[in-house]
């Protein structure tokens, strides 16, 4: 004796407090349950890949800042590694250590943002977000000290890093690194046993390992499903093979596991930074390369483990100063394709929380 119902279309439009950027979802809902979703991207398309074909490789580094604007260092690192492989440029050891320090700092900052916005989406009125932002602010202050910018750092160069960090950088870094583990414990204490948070995130948005591999999921989302794949251990780049750290994986593949994996990864990043600071050798911070680097014709695919997963750069060179083809493999775009299956049958609140746990950055989806 149920009344016949009709599905309606809800447009979670480009402007929305919880879509993590300009990103549109058309949701076909039946009451409170989602029947189907339709994701429309492209609102932030800035045609980076085409513009990059007119600029030299060094001039293309700022594009990577703005693609994934929450993980600028990782983007820079990816492009530099790919270009170095293409042009066969050697990187001094000190530069590699500096790159690792900054990439891990960026990972901590990005995970703080991702976890904070996830808890805000679950309804906690930004309090955990602002707590995590304390550390993020200190990290961004460190970035500003070194390269002058907080968000779009443009710090890595082909052959090393752009600047040597100033003398006041190292004590500030050590102070932060000493303080972080207890802060992470504080966040764990606040959130991981919180009933309401567990009720909102447990068994929501479950991705099985098979679905994850079939859907090309990468990053903490993949590790949350139990698949132990981390590029820093599988294909070590940039002296990661000398670092001792663990790769946390989850058990169920739900939102809670992805949250916990990110939190645990922050701890591992702190370990890596400490080891890097202890072992950093002296030397120059970059090798000299010609102003307009002309790599030999060829193609390369260089990838790094960014905070969101495998951030890949496909460069094709035709011998000129500008790349013939410049493509960014954005992890957010490919991770996002799983949202459709996850959202079917879920309620709207669950879909929002799942989207937050996949951790997308629209800048990198649209480029």
């Amino acid at each position: 004796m149920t009344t016949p119902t009709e599905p309606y279309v809800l447009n979670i439009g480009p402007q929305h407090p919880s879509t993590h950027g300009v990103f549109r979802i058309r949701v076909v809902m039946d009451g409170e349950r989602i029947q189907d979703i339709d994701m429309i991207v492209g609102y932030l398309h800035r045609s980076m890949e085409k513009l990059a074909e007119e600029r030299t490789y060094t001039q293309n580094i700022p594009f990577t800042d703005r693609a994934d604007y929450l993980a600028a260092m990782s983007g820079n690192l990816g492009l530099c590694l790919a270009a170095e492989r293409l042009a066969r440029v050697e990187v001094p050891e000190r530069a590699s250590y500096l790159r690792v320090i900054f990439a891990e700092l960026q990972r901590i900052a990005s995970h703080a943002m991702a976890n904070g916005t996830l808890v805000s989406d679950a309804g906690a009125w930004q309090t955990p977000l602002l707590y995590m932002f304390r550390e993020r602010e200190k990290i961004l202050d460190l970035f500003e000290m070194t390269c002058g910018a907080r968000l779009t750092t443009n710090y890595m160069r082909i052959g090393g890093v752009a600047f040597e960090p100033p003398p006041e950088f190292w004590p500030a870094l050590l102070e932060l690194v000493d303080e972080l583990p207890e802060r992470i414990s504080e966040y764990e204490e606040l959130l991981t046993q919180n009933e309401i948070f567990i009720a909102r995130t447990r068994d929501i948005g479950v991705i099985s390992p098979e679905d994850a591999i079939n859907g090309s999921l990468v990053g903490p989302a993949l590790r949350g499903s139990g698949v132990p794949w981390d590029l820093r251990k599988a294909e070590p780049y940039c002296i990661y093979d000398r670092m001792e750290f663990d790769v946390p994986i989850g058990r169920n593949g739900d939102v809670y596991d992805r949250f916990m994996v990110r939190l645990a990864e922050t701890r591992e990043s702190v370990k890596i930074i400490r080891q890097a600071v202890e072992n950093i050798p002296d030397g120059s911070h970059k090798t000299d390369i010609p102003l307009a680097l002309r790599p030999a014709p060829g193609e390369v695919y260089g990838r790094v483990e960014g905070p969101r997963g495998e951030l890949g750069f496909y460069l094709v060179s035709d011998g000129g100063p500008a790349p013939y083809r410049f493509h960014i493999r954005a992890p957010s775009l490919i991770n996002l394709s799983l949202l459709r299956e996850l959202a079917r049958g879920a309620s709207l609140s669950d879909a929002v929380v799942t989207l937050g746990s996949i951790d997308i950055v629209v800048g990198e989806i649209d480029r």
Partner: protein
Amino acid sequence: MDSLGVVIAFYVLSAITIVSAASIFLLRNLVHAIVLLVVVFLGMAGLFLTLSADFIAVAQILIYAGAISVLFVFAVMLTPLASRDNGNSLYAGPGLLLGGAIAAIVVVTAFDVEWNQLTGVALEQRSFTDTIEVIGNQLLGPHVLAFEVASVLLLFALLGAIVLVTDPNNEDGAAAEEEAGKDTAVGGSE
């Protein structure tokens, strides 16, 4: 019914109630009609207050304006075209006739009956300040059987509503069944 304030209140409230009640069946917009129904309920609560029936007035607001109107609202929202043209109906003529006939019967009976009215000293001796206590004593004293029977009846209505709405195949009738159950439950517990 002596003081000037009470008389003014009576006339004002009666005017509001009657005009709203008339507008309910004269309006074309069903949703507006529901709002006016709520006004009628509130007007009636005010009229109860002019008769010093404080408990009944507050219970009227709680049950009618608070719960039953929500039930009406849900029912109207499930009606297609609730805000559109609802004026023309085949039953307008017979409806008015029947309504007029009932109104005539009620008015004639009201004027004809010998109302048991107390005045003066008898009123003073009989009047009480605490209606709740008296109602409570009556409900749990001389009229306890009727009270219990009414409660059991409402319980069956609640259970029946849940049974009617639950789809044995899935449990997604939960929201609707709770809504249906709530109104009868409120009516019973008060």
